[in-house]
């Protein structure tokens, strides 16, 4: 009997003392600002071509990408910075492994808690962009489960990465992966902008696959590639979880 849900309960218990609405505000504030900046400003500058021209079309192009990015950021931050803190300073898991809980439960529980948090902010952001008229298809209801999948893939990968972080400045290297992904994984312009050789490289990024999935669902332009994206994210999540369990077991000496 797995007891991974206890980790989720523990985090909810801790959160009870904080202010839960902070989570939502923190999750959607930054993508919302980007959306306004892009919608009002950059959208007016973009002249036709791949995205169709006017500012609202461009904002609808960028909105699902910001949704994917916010799911990625909140998932990775939760499983890297927060878990790292618990491992290195709170020594939380050192206490937990003396109970019947196994490291596998800890890993799965951390990932589940991160997915819960990330899905919460992604859903709120989805409501915001729907209210702003940037969602053009009923398929968008599937964007919530898609966000869960994206959060799972990045939470698992983040947890695996967290086990390799020995010093605080290593977190900077993580940002060095996430920021270029945010900027280059077709967030602000389509894949066709890149030279052919670079296109394959960009398409291999997990954030690109996430954006493709959400962009297809919110614009209603479905494609076979979206199934590929789903398979990619599932594989990334399962692989990340496997690695995280392995590494955590080594670190916690069980």
């Amino acid at each position, binding site marked *: 009997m797995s007891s991974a849900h206890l980790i989720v309960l523990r985090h909810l218990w801790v959160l009870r003392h904080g202010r839960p609405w902070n989570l939502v505000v*923190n999750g959607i*504030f*930054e993508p919302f*600002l*980007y959306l*306004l*900046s*892009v919608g*009002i*400003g*950059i959208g*007016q*500058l*973009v*002249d036709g*071509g*791949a*995205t169709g021209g006017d500012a609202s079309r461009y904002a609808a192009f960028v909105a699902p990408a910001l949704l994917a990015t916010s799911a990625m950021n909140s998932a990775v931050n939760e499983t890297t910075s927060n878990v790292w803190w618990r491992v290195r300073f709170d020594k939380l898991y050192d206490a937990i492994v003396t109970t019947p809980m196994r490291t596998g439960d800890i890993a799965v529980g951390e990932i589940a808690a991160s997915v819960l948090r990330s899905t919460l902010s992604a859903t709120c952001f989805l409501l915001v962009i729907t209210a702003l008229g940037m969602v053009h298809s009923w398929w968008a209801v599937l964007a919530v489960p898609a966000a869960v999948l994206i959060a799972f893939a990045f939470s698992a990968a983040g947890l695996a990465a967290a086990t390799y972080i020995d010093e*605080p*400045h290593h977190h*900077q*290297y993580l*940002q*060095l992966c996430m*920021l*270029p992904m945010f*900027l*280059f994984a077709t967030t*602000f*312009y389509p894949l066709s*902008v*890149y030279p052919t050789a670079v296109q394959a490289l960009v398409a291999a990024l997990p954030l690109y696959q996430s954006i493709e999935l959400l962009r297809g669902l919110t614009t209603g332009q479905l494609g076979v590639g979206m199934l590929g994206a789903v398979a990619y994210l599932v594989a990334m999540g399962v692989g990340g979880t496997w690695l995280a369990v392995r590494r955590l077991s080594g670190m916690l000496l069980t």
Partner: protein
Amino acid sequence: MTTGIITPVGRETGTGTGTERALRAYRYWTLRYRRTWRGTVVISVANPLLFLIAMGLGLGRLISPDSAVLGGVDYLAFFAPGMLAAASMQNGIIEAAFPVSWSRRPGGAYPVAAGTPLEPEDILHGHLLFMTVRVALSAAAFLLVMVAFGAARSPLVWLTLLAATLTGMAFALPAAAWAVTLTDVGPVTGIFKWVVMPLYLFSGTFFAVEQLPDALRPVVYVTPLWHGVDLCRTLSLGTATWPTSLAHVAYLSALVTAGYLLARRNYRRNLYA
């Protein structure tokens, strides 16, 4: 003059002039920096450069090169100097807010330094010198790449090194003055979310202020980052005029001065508490 065994430490005794003491505080920060510079290169140099490439070159391909609202230049030439100013703001706050609030905690670098002949002003001056050097070095790295990309339109672009450093310090000094009063670093992360990000996105960095609704424009004109952005941009494009440039410099210098006076007062109050 002999005054007994216990001599009062301070300005009167042989601990050097104020400049020498401040340089000792500065040396502390440079010694520390030898161990931590790798992480800071990522955030203060790689980060804005990635923005420059992604937005200036990538997004620029979707934007018509002679857009009137951008002043008739291509997007890269418009965006790069704005990004330089915005990155300097971020670097100024990063260099000031976290280290200052972290150093002033019990057992931190500040209380320890205050236990030596260093006066709070010396600690402040030494740290400020270090912040200025850091902001200027990051701006110089960005500026070189910007010129290499062909984003500059005028030889005046080299003056943006001074303009960007001034912009960074206009944020660093008030940030330091505020951070030294904190007993916990928690609130510092808040200013990145509530101050740095909104300014970054709406101070004319990514698009012209003229594109904003009429009601919002005066708000942007009041923000210090817009003055830094416009100063850097007009210098880089060669469209700078004396009256507007001097007004920008005066505005930013006023912030530096006010921040300095406030910081000096707060350092003395909080380090002798």
